[in-house]
């Protein structure tokens, strides 16, 4: 007797992923496949061993590999009684998966038309899934939107945005990801105030927000102004040109994280590395320097965004827990591929409390432990003006146009350091006599 366990489209989970999941089980489990190229087959797995594989009328290892040749199709996973005389397995799953040839048209296969329609795959029900009942189309209304959308989403309705080529950045491109392993360390605050100071120096700046949660527009109390955000461009292919918001500073524009509603959470869980890189690249064509505010942590979404940046600026909160986790900053960068690893522009210490020993010791340790050229000379103290700034929804400098709080000027210093490290051309100064 077959007991259906799960089913779905290979567009949503590819065969290798399905097999890895099945591979953690110990029971005799079958994966039935109907591929878009017409091949029908079954793979049996038990305790991480591939027991057998058939594809149309072939069997054995070749059949196993043949089942990887189409990217589209449906899978159906079922359990059934272990046969009394199990054959010798074809091999351990993890090893066989490593030998799967890379995708692409093969000689024996008809070559796909050059512009394959993206969603041409049609849904076909598997006739054999006696045990499988699809979730009710309108699952209970109490269900949380994310769980519900994940359940009701028929695989083909998760429309991936068009694939784009990830362009290489030119030597003059400056895209700086603002990152920190710990949340709440001041990334958004520093992104906003540093952008402003860069713009005041005469550089054109776009600040891109990529964090749905601690978003910049909320910080400046302008959430309702956003129609299109960076996530809409990446996941829903929205146009960039209508998305940039002007500020009172002519050279400073903001690209918010999201417009009025969130993109499909299912879709947001997909990586879209190339689309992120393309967006960053496109924005960099419109400004001297691009700053990118990222979500807390070094993995997930932040990691994807970093792969499209030319530089990263780490924010280290002068506090013990933050310091302990800061090692992740360097480690996570190390884990990136050489050609996708941004340079470290520097690390800025935030919320320093000189009267507190623990806070100071973070500073001292950072001086000792971080590579010498990382730490900026400018450190930002913990200061109540930041609270007012968030409260009033304004950058520090704009809290009081006539007498900005002195900490606002620290960002001018930081901007000067950043410009120097990036070798940004500063408008030439003419030599002038001192006495008039």
């Amino acid at each position, binding site marked *: 007797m077959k*007991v*259906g*366990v*799960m*089913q*779905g489209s290979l567009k*949503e*989970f590819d065969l290798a*992923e*399905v097999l*890895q*999941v*099945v*591979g*953690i*089980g*110990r*029971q*005799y*489990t079958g994966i039935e496949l109907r591929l878009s190229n017409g091949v029908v087959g079954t793979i049996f797995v*038990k*305790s*991480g*061993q591939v027991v057998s594989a058939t594809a149309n009328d072939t069997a054995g290892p070749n059949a196993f590999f043949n089942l990887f040749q189409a990217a589209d199709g449906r899978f159906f996973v079922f359990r059934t009684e*272990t046969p009394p005389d*199990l054959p010798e397995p074809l091999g*351990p*799953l*993890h090893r066989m998966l490593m030998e799967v040839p890379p995708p692409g048209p093969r000689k024996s296969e008809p070559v796909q038309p050059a512009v394959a329609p993206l969603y041409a795959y049609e849904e076909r029900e598997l006739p054999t899934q006696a*045990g*499988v*009942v699809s*979730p009710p189309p309108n699952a209970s209304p109490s*269900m*949380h939107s*994310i*769980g519900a959308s*994940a*359940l009701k*989403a028929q*695989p083909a309705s998760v429309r991936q945005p068009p694939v784009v080529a990830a362009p290489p950045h030119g030597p003059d491109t400056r895209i700086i990801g603002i990152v920190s*392993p*710990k*949340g*709440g360390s001041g990334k958004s605050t520093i992104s906003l105030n540093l952008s402003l100071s860069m713009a005041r120096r005469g550089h054109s700046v776009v600040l891109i927000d990529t964090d749905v*949660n601690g978003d910049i527009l909320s910080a400046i109390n302008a959430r309702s102004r956003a129609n299109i955000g960076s996530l809409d461009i990446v996941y829903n292919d929205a146009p960039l040109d209508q998305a940039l918001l002007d500020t009172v500073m002519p050279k400073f524009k903001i690209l918010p994280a999201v417009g009025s509603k969130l993109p499909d*959470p*299912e879709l*947001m*869980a997909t990586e879209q590395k190339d689309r992120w890189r393309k967006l960053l690249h496109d924005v960099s064509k419109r400004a001297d320097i691009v700053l990118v505010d990222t979500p*807390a*942590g*070094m*993995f*997930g*979404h932040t990691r994807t965004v970093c792969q499209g940046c030319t530089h990263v600026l780490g924010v280290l909160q002068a506090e013990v*827990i933050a310091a*302990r*986790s800061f090692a*992740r900053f360097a480690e996570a960068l190390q884990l990136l591929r050489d050609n996708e690893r941004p340079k470290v522009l520097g690390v800025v210490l935030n919320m320093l409390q000189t009267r507190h020993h623990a806070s100071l010791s973070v500073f001292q340790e950072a001086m000792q432990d971080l590579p010498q050229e990382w730490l900026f000379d400018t450190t930002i103290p913990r200061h109540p003006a930041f609270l007012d700034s968030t409260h009033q929804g304004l950058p520090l400098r704009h809290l009081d146009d006539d007498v900005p709080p002195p900490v606002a000027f620290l960002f001018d210093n930081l901007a000067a350091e950043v410009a120097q490290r990036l070798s940004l051309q500063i408008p030439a100064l003419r030599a002038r006599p001192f006495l008039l």
Partner: protein
Amino acid sequence: MLSDTEKTAIRQSWRLVVPIADTAADLFYRRLFELRPDYRELFGIDMASQKRKLLHMLAFTVKSVDFKDSDWRDDVSPDQDLMLVILALGRRHSELYRIPNESYAVVAEALLWTLKFGLGDAFTPEVEAAWTKIYTLLSRTMQMASATVNREAPMPTVAETQAVGENALRQQKEAMGVDEESLMPQEHLS
């Protein structure tokens, strides 16, 4: 799905976690809520029982992946089958606890941080890679469940799997001669 070297890395590092398991669970949640204070409200008030449940599930996972390749013909019951247990767990996470998909990355970060903090030098790159792999497998399974699982198929219940996990942790502690009293004091790590 793990290679023998990965299984060894998991088994040996988990042996170091078992004696400090409760502290590690404390650290894990502290780190998680530090990363994302807003996740606190997803959890109930009783964090002590939540910590226990997480440990049981990890103990169960470690035990489940740790079998000799030559024993592949042996059968296990559905409530001890890692795939079925994790699929059911994934379904509960999306349908009952309503966690967002992107939280898996945050939990990964908190878990790896905890292991690194708790294991110190024993958290070698190999150990890190093995835990990253096992976590990726678990979270992928959980996410796949929320999308495609057969809701009518019999799946292990919370009580069943927690009992199995509790057992796994007890056996591991006994095998190592760890009794509850000798647990490291919390201050040691904080």
